[in-house]
């Protein structure tokens, strides 16, 4: 059963082709990792998947439904959640306020202008559970700008899980973390419910080969290799790109 399928995605920024005819599909429970050198178009691809950027061509299907023209927030309601490469939290609000925003996001209560946001005890319990899972419960009343970078990264992922997503996009979840924090993030991703589909962009090879059951290698906006971790490790083109010995005319 497919979670997401994209066909012929294209995106240009002026003369630069950031995404060039990209097609792939991820099934439920799939763990797809996208790798590629800097500037390969990984973040652009993410922004196309979740609708932050308009497409120049191609189609996006979410759980079998064409969502190509659906705005960001509606894709979220279809079960898609994403984390951001550059931490994208609400800096003046507290950790718990951030969590409550994420928890209300897909519920009708998000429009309620009368009831205090803290009075939703079911959501508060859920928020407590999630924050505890990431060792953030003790920081719940701290403003985001007061907690460490590692804690911000963890909250970044915790907010995505608040929506009980069916498809999770993680943009460099381990960037800037210490080795032990990386380990914890990996553990967390491994422990996600098995029916969630996960797409990850990351540079950390332990994480890439430790989590992926499929890998896509992106180079100049194009898929140059796709396969299981073993296939990718043995792939000659991938070695070429990562060793830096290629012609560099964009058609390698």
């Amino acid at each position, binding site marked *: 059963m497919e979670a997401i399928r994209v066909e012929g995605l294209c995106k240009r920024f002026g003369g630069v082709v950031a995404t060039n005819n990209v097609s792939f599909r991820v099934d439920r429970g799939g763990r797809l990792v996208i790798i590629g050198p800097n500037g390969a178009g990984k973040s652009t691809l993410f922004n196309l998947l*979740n609708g*932050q950027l308009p497409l120049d061509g191609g189609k996006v299907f979410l759980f079998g439904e064409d969502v190509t023209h659906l*705005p*960001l*927030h509606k894709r*979220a*309601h279809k079960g898609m*959640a*994403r984390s*951001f490469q550059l931490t*994208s*939290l*609400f*800096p*003046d*609000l*507290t950790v*718990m*306020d951030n969590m*409550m*925003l*994420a928890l*209300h*996001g*897909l519920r009708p*209560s*998000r*429009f*309620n*202008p*009368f*009831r*205090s*946001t*803290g009075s*939703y005890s079911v959501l*508060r319990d859920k928020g407590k559970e999630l924050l505890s899972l990431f060792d953030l419960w003790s920081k*719940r*009343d*701290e*403003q985001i700008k007061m907690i460490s970078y590692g804690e911000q990264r963890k909250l970044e992922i915790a*907010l995505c899980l608040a*929506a009980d997503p069916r498809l999770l996009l993680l943009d460099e979840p381990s960037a800037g973390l210490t080795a032990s924090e990386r380990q914890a993030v990996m553990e967390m991703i491994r422990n996600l419910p098995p029916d969630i589909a996960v797409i990850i962009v990351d540079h950390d090879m332990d994480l890439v080969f430790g989590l992926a059951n499929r890998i896509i290698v992106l180079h100049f906006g194009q898929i140059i290799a796709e396969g299981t971790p073993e296939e990718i490790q043995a792939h000659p083109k991938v070695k070429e790109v990562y060793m830096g010995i290629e012609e560099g005319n964009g058609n390698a």
Partner: protein
Amino acid sequence: MSKKLAPYLIAAVILVAFPPLLQSYYLSVVTMILIFGLFAMSLNIIFGHTGLNSLGHAAFFGTAGYVTGIAIVTYGIKSFWTSAPLGILGAAVIAAIFGIIALRVSGVYFLLITFALGQLLWTVAEKWYSVTMGRSGFVGIPAPDPGLSFLDFGSPVGFYYFVFVVFGVCYYLMACLHRSPFGYALQGIRERESRMSALGYNVWLYKYIAYITAAIFAGVGGILYAHFNGSIAPSHIGFSTSALGMLMVILGGAGALWGPVLGAALIILLQGFASLLVPARWPLILGVLFVIGVMGFKGGIGPHLVRIVVRAFSHGSNQGRRTV
């Protein structure tokens, strides 16, 4: 909880008990502060909470005042319970139209478009003589008639209490809004729009609803002002009143709910003294005040005042932060 309510209770007791003892001039100053405090608070819903810099907020204040005045004087609708909702409806309709236009852009462009739309309405108020009585303003608006016989709303004290109750109700509603999921969503939009979309919030719709909500509260202020003054003029729609509202919010502080009320109090008190002492120099004083306020009290005077009060009263280093 009771500790949080205490300042409100004290403020309420002062506002209920003392005004009848004041001379009518000072009573009218307090009434003005509540009316403009309400206006500044309404602006803060979009300006402070949502991060939309509107320079045309008086359009809703003035429109509601005009519609109420016209309903009462031209069409003879006596009851406050009919004339006021008409005024509010007028403000809401104008906001619904302006919002569709202005919310297509953001940042400084939003500021410019709201300014332009406000000036547009100002021109209408000035030129449409047959309806608005033109440049000199729409006059002859009587005291509100809510059909309650135990208070004379035509008297300064009676009208003051009327304004006080309306202000209190609006303050309570805005306080609820501020702490609600909807209010937090507005703050989230101010800080990180893209994240809010990714979390499933329809950002545009939130801004639109916030814009209309702010217009409704501004409209309530405008209606009170029309009754208070007995008239409403094009300047109450245009730039000067919009800018005054913005000054009140910036000076008082957008962070706290009551910050804009403090800003309104400050400006109206100073305006009152200036008009007695150096009538021609008010704009100059306002300018200097604004520069000092912005440079010396970042985030408004409100938070600084709180810090001083807290330091004076606290005997521990217990920094109570807001908890959900």
